[in-house]
Every structure is written in structure tokens, then in C-alpha cells.
């Protein structure tokens, strides 16, 4: 029995317990299906705890996300939750932004401050995104309750400066799935922005992309999740092939194990997500992001056990 449970990972150079990896994949896949995030910001640190080298953990996770987001995108596509037009525009911007981000990292490394800036960017981004989403959805939930109670429709919102700006941009087009009309410059520009941040932070960018779609593109939450997964799928195909050819850090056996777990998780997640209300989804994702932010802040503030570290990774 013991024989079947352990598997040697040739690229990671270590053996792992199959069940532990399947379980990990399932848990992260569940989150991925519910929230439309790749889950890289959770998976990579957990794999490192299991004795996988950081670079192999990150690359194999990208490979795994390819499968998980395929499964997730399929599930959301059937539910009519994927805005392909929007996804492609964001992707186009994201690829451009990613290349810019990689150059920025190079310059920062030469200046010698890259690690510091990466960590600070992480904590600030996570804190800002998580905090804003948390407060915003809390307020929305309170309002919704009040409205139910008084049985009055909410007062029509005044058009904000941001909305005016959106409407005045050229190249307006309809995004039917999302039910919005928007200049195609917006998703392109925001895609670039997220791409830059994601490349600097070394993550897929799902947890930045989701709030951007909700708050800046004003897409409905359920379409956001499906579209985000669709976009992540292509980003991770690109990352996997690049990591495999340039750094030889993709452990396919590890990725496949994680994938089996996470694909099932993602399917279940998509169904749970459908049942939960949009505001509940937002507040849960916000809490998750905040937890990760506090963990990172803690790591920055508390003296590490060992004052030396291997090279590679960030």
C-alpha cells in the first residue's frame, strides 16, 4: 500500500505523497472554480512547504492551472459566463504588460532593490485590493438588507466622473455576455496594467484581474469569474512553455497530480459559486486575499529561522 502512495518527481528531485498532492490540488481548485483565480498565490507556498523547490513549484503550478482553467472555463462557458471578446482584449493587453513587467524586473535587479520592491508591491496590492473589496461588499450587503426591509428600490446612482470618462472614450463596443458597452481601449489598457504587476510579482494575476473587472470594467461577478479563467488559461500556457524551454522547471508529474485534484475541485467550485451571491463571493475572495497579505507581512516583519536562502525565485 505504501508503494502506491509515494511518487518520485523527476524535475523537483523529491518524492511526495500522492494523496497529499491530490488533496492540495482539490482544495486550491475549489477556490479557483469559485473565485476565478488561478490560486498560484496559495499553491506555490504550500508546495514549497512539502519540499518542492520554489522555481519548480511555481512553474509546475502554471502547468497545472492550464488544465484546471480549461476545466473551469468549460464549466463556466456552459453556464454562459465567459465573455470571450473581453477575455481576448484583456489577454492581449496582459501579454504586452507581461513583457514590460519582465523588463522592469531586470532593471530593478540591476539596481539591486528588486526583492524589496517585489515584496512591498505584493503587500500593498493585496492589502489594497482585499481591503477595498471587503469594505465595498460589506456596504453593498448592508444596503441590500435595508432595501429588502423597507421594500424600496435603491435610488438611481449619480453618474460618477469615472463613468463619464468611460463613456467619452472612443471605440465603444458592446460586450453582450457582460451586458455592458465600453471602449475597447479600457480592457486593453487594464490588461497591460495587470500584466505588468503580475510579471513583477511573478503570479498569474487572477486576484488583481478579478477586482479590475468588477470595479473598473463593471462586469457582473459571474461573468468575471468565467472570463478570468478563460484569460488565465492562455497566460499559463505561455508561462508553462517558457519555463519548460528556458529554465527546465516544469515537473509534469507534479502538475498532473495537482491537475487531477484541482479539475474536480474547480467543477465543484463553479457550482458552489453559482449558488453563492455575488456579494458573498466578493467578500470571501477579499478575506482570502487579506489572509495571504497578512501572512506575507508577517514573514517580512518576523525574523526568519534561517538567515541564508537558496538563490532562485524571488
Amino acid at each position: 500500500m505504501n508503494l502506491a502512495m509515494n511518487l518520485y518527481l523527476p524535475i523537483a528531485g523529491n518524492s511526495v505523497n500522492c494523496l497529499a498532492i491530490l488533496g492540495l490540488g482539490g482544495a486550491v481548485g475549489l477556490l479557483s472554480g469559485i473565485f476565478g483565480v488561478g490560486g498560484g498565490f496559495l499553491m506555490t507556498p504550500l508546495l514549497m512547504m512539502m519540499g518542492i523547490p520554489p522555481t519548480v513549484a511555481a512553474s509546475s503550478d502554471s502547468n497545472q492551472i492550464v488544465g484546471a482553467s480549461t476545466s473551469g472555463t468549460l464549466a463556466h462557458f456552459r453556464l454562459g459566463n465567459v465573455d470571450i471578446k473581453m477575455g481576448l482584449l484583456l489577454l492581449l493587453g496582459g501579454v504586452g504588460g507581461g513583457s514590460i513587467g519582465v523588463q522592469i524586473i531586470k532593471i530593478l535587479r540591476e539596481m539591486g532593490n528588486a526583492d524589496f520592491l517585489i515584496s512591498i508591491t505584493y503587500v500593498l496590492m493585496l492589502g489594497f485590493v482585499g481591503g477595498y473589496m471587503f469594505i465595498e461588499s460589506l456596504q453593498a450587503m448592508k444596503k441590500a438588507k435595508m432595501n429588502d426591509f423597507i421594500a424600496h428600490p435603491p435610488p438611481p446612482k449619480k453618474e460618477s466622473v469615472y463613468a463619464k470618462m468611460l463613456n467619452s472614450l472612443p471605440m465603444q463596443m458592446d460586450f453582450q455576455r457582460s451586458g455592458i458597452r465600453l471602449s475597447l481601449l479600457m480592457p486593453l489598457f487594464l490588461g497591460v496594467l495587470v500584466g505588468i504587476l503580475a510579471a513583477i510579482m511573478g503570479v498569474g494575476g487572477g486576484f488583481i484581474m478579478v477586482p479590475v473587472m468588477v470595479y473598473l470594467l463593471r462586469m457582473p461577478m459571474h461573468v468575471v469569474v468565467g472570463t478570468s479563467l478563460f484569460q488565465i488559461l492562455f497566460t499559463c500556457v505561455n508561462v508553462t512553455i517558457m519555463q519548460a524551454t528556458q529554465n527546465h522547471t516544469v515537473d509534469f508529474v507534479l502538475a498532473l497530480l495537482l491537475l487531477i485534484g484541482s479539475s474536480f475541485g474547480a467543477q465543484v467550485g463553479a457550482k458552489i459559486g453559482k449558488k453563492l451571491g455575488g456579494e458573498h463571493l466578493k467578500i470571501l475572495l477579499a478575506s482570502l486575499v487579506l489572509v495571504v497579505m497578512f501572512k506575507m507581512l508577517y514573514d517580512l516583519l518576523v525574523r526568519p529561522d534561517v538567515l541564508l536562502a537558496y538563490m532562485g525565485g524571488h
Partner: protein
Amino acid sequence: MKKYLYVFLLLFLLTALPPLALTASASAGPAATATGEISTSPATIAIGAQFNGITLEVNGTVPAGSEMVVRLMGAPTELHLRQKGKVFGLLWMNIGQIALKDVPNVFLVDASRPLDELGKAALPYRLQGLADNLEYEKNGQTREIDVPHELLMLKESTGLYNEKTGGVKLGPDEGGKRTFTAELTIPSSLPPGEYKVEAIAVKDGAVAATSVTSIKAELVGFPKSLSDIAFNRSLFYGIMATVIAIVSGLVIGLIFQSKGAH
């Protein structure tokens, strides 16, 4: 020519001053005679799909009455590490790099008695012996940290450095000799490569005999094929990895769909 002269002088000193020789380099001391052949079982470490570390058995014969130290060690290489330190008196960051010389990637020691009881003779074969002779250079911002100590902590946390007692069993003295059997626990994270296995007999606070053999750890079967493709045909490997991931994702998605329909 000068080099040879130094070597000659060094050898002369070593042979002329036996007690000093024992602590400095035990294998060169005149009191140390070869134990004869030592053997390992298995003779090579095969890293296959089910590899989860192994127990390596080391057998040999040593002079009667001696205690044993057995060590498995990788070839010493240069190692570059990052040093962490406080920035602005608040945040722990990587602040510089350290280049260490002659650090073996693996260092596993076991003994028939607590190593402290074996005294100075065993020191060169211990982790502390490695730490005492560690040479390193710092780049970037420097802070005072105990580099050898931190290195041992880092390596021990991955299981590739380990020092313990009780894995070496000694046979009874017979005709001025005794046999020993050592069981070294090899972790699954052992990198493929060539390793040195040493058996050191310690008697009356001095090294009585030493013997060395080598053992190879290599990937076999599925891990070997996959690793070959990953390194030699990396583009194919990357594309294959993504295609299989996409197909698996679709298949699992479809299975779920048909289940959901019932």
C-alpha cells in the same frame, strides 16, 4: 616544481608528527591503515518512479575494539546563497549574496557511539568539522551573521545534511578484527550524482583505519525518460505538458457534465 616541493614538505610534516596528523587529516596519518574493502548495498542508488529514499547498508571489517564513523558525502562545490537581513530596522529582506567554497551538496554522518564521545579524532568527519573550515565571501551589504552555523541550519532543514548516532552496529572482536554494518538513511531529495562513502575506525581517541568507496545515484525508468525529454527536448516537453493538461481538463469537465446530467 614549487608545488611539488610544498606537497613533499607537507607529506613529510604529516608523517613526522603523527598526533598532529590525526587531527588535521586522518586518512594521511601513519596510524591509519586501510580497513580493506567496504561495500555498500545496494551498490548503486536507483531513483525510479517509486523512489522514496532508501536505507543504504555499508559493510566492512575494522581493527578490533574500534568504534565506527560512517559518512556519505557529495563532491564539494561552490555554493551561492542569499543573506537575509533587516531593512530600515523593520523588514526582513534578502540583502546580499554569499559565495561559499567547497560545500558538499550532501553530508550524512552516522556513528556507533555518540560522536562527542569519540572526541577530536572524529571531528574532521563531522558537520562541525565542515563548518570550522568553511571559506566564504560576501557581496553586497554585509551584516555579521554566523555563516557556517546558518549554512548547517539551511542544509539540515532540507534533510541533506544530517548527523546522528546508532545506525552503525559492530560485530564481536575476532582475531584482532571486528565487522561493522552501518545503515544510512538516504532522503528522497538526494540529487543524482556520485557520492563518497567513508568508514572511519576510531580507537583510543585516534583514527585507527579509514576506507573509502564511491556510490552512484542515478535516475532510472520513467523519471529518467521524463527528465531526458525535459532537458534535451524542452520545447516538445513544454508543449506536451500543456496539451495533456488541456485534454485532461476537458475530459474531467466532460465526465462531470455527464454525471451532473443524471
